[in-house]
């Protein structure tokens, strides 16, 4: 049923996008260097079977490129280096599920949001001492894992704990996989992640992990650009047209529902 609807929607919206495309800017094949890390499934990751970079953001960028006529060149970056590198103009655009945040806007320009994600609580599979954020916050023995500078870190600090970024109840890890391992061996009791990655880890853990509680707040993802980039209005126009004709929704269905992570 869902497939039929998607196909029908694509057909209808496909016509609509033809009409809309006429209003979009044409950048004449201009080269745009895009920084990616490929470590954020299903937005961008390495297909475990083929080793190729795939994901929601690659599909979206390909569609944007078609609509505003740009040539995309991908370069690998790491999360630590991406914001400084884009800020100094090393790349024209950075994408890796970057949450639109005020403090980051001092360094880089953001596009309009192209995706909204929810934050979930991951705990050990046999966790029975708490099942929501308040229950976790109430006991000062419970520890959380987070990567410094990421949205899960800030949500843990401000939405679950007391707003103290140096709170000793947060154990910092260099990457999310390490945080998950700490959770599995019992060094910490909680780790936050957006719903997609959370589901991926839980599926791959064979019962070692589970998700508890309600989703915590939402985050909007945007592309980042060097300050004053002239690309922003064109990319925004493409995002708006993809939102309007259902392309973004179709990508959500493809990558969040139909694609099975970690298998």
């Amino acid at each position, binding site marked *: 049923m869902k497939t039929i609807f998607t196909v029908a929607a694509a057909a209808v919206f496909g016509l609509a996008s033809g009409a809309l495309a006429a209003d979009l800017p044409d950048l004449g094949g201009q080269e745009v*260097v895009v*920084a990616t*890390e*490929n*470590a*954020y*499934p299903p937005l961008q*990751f*390495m*297909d*475990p*079977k083929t*080793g190729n970079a795939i994901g929601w953001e690659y599909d979206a960028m390909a569609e944007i490129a078609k609509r505003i006529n740009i040539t995309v060149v991908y*370069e*690998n*970056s*790491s999360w*630590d*280096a*991406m914001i*400084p*590198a884009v800020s*100094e*103009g*090393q*790349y024209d655009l950075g994408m890796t599920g970057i949450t639109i945040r005020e403090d980051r806007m001092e360094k880089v320009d953001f596009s309009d949001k192209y995706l909204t994600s929810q934050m979930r609580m991951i705990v050990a599979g046999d966790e029975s001492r708490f099942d929501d954020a308040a229950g976790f916050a109430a006991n000062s023995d419970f520890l959380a894992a987070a990567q410094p500078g990421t949205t899960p870190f800030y949500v843990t600090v401000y939405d679950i704990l007391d707003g103290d970024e140096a709170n000793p109840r947060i154990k910092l890890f260099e*990457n*999310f*996989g*390490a945080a*998950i*391992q700490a959770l599995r061996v019992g060094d910490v009791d909680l780790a936050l992640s957006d719903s997609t990655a959370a589901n*991926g*880890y839980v*599926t*791959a*853990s064979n019962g070692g992990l589970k998700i508890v509680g309600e989703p915590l707040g939402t985050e909007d993802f945007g592309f980042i650009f060097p300050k004053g980039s002239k690309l922003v209005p064109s990319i925004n126009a493409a995002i708006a047209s993809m939102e309007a004709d259902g392309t973004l929704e179709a990508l959500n269905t493809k990558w969040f529902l139909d694609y099975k*992570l*970690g298998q």
Partner: protein
Amino acid sequence: MAASSNDKEDFPWWLAAVVLIGLYLGWQVVASELYLQILTTLTKGIKTTIFVTIVSFTLASLLGLLLALGAGSKWLVVRQVTRFYVEVVRGVPIIVLLLYVAFALAPALVELRNYLGDMIGLEPIRTRQFPLIWRAIIALMVAYSAFISEVFRAGLQAVEEGQIEAAKALGLNGWQQFRLVIFPQAIRTIMPPLGNDFVALVKDSSLVSVLGVLDVTQLGKVIAAGNFRYFETYNVVALIYLTMTISLSLALRRFERHLRDKETTE
């Protein structure tokens, strides 16, 4: 040199143990589709790791040698400047050096290049034309040159004063003294710790992953993020680094023994 005769006789039990573990892990890799997939993808990073290691080690050795000679200079300014460089660089974590070089030194170098290029009519280049892999290599070169210069300095100072006097008495000039008398003797003291630094650099080259350089470590990070199999992935990463470092250690031992044998037969 008396102590070294022992490790000639010792049967390398540790190596036998390593080989057994390696065989076991190797069998795991071949038997499991997941491990095999990880290994296949990771192999793409080995070339980068080796390239980064060899280039930055070569450059660091050259700079280290210059620094060591600077430390023994007859001019106070040169001696103090070298000392300053070695002490400061040796005390800063490599990961911090990497970020400094990539995002402070590299843009400054590009600016300098454009300033100088402007005078002779060259087109200005942009920072992005300075690839991150070369910024990473420069950072590793800077970091390791400080350690290596100390190795060279110790080796050069270990050459007896009488040898230099004899060389002078033979009428050799400064360069000839260094090339024919001092360096051939110093190299035997230098080799073991220098080899040690090389093995350490194979591992430390993994730090370039913070700049997104696609070496074995960065690929491991990316793979683990995609398949959610953190342990399996890092097992393979460890296996690859161990294979590189242990075979390198064995090669270095052979080479040291070769130097030693040459010394005794001379």
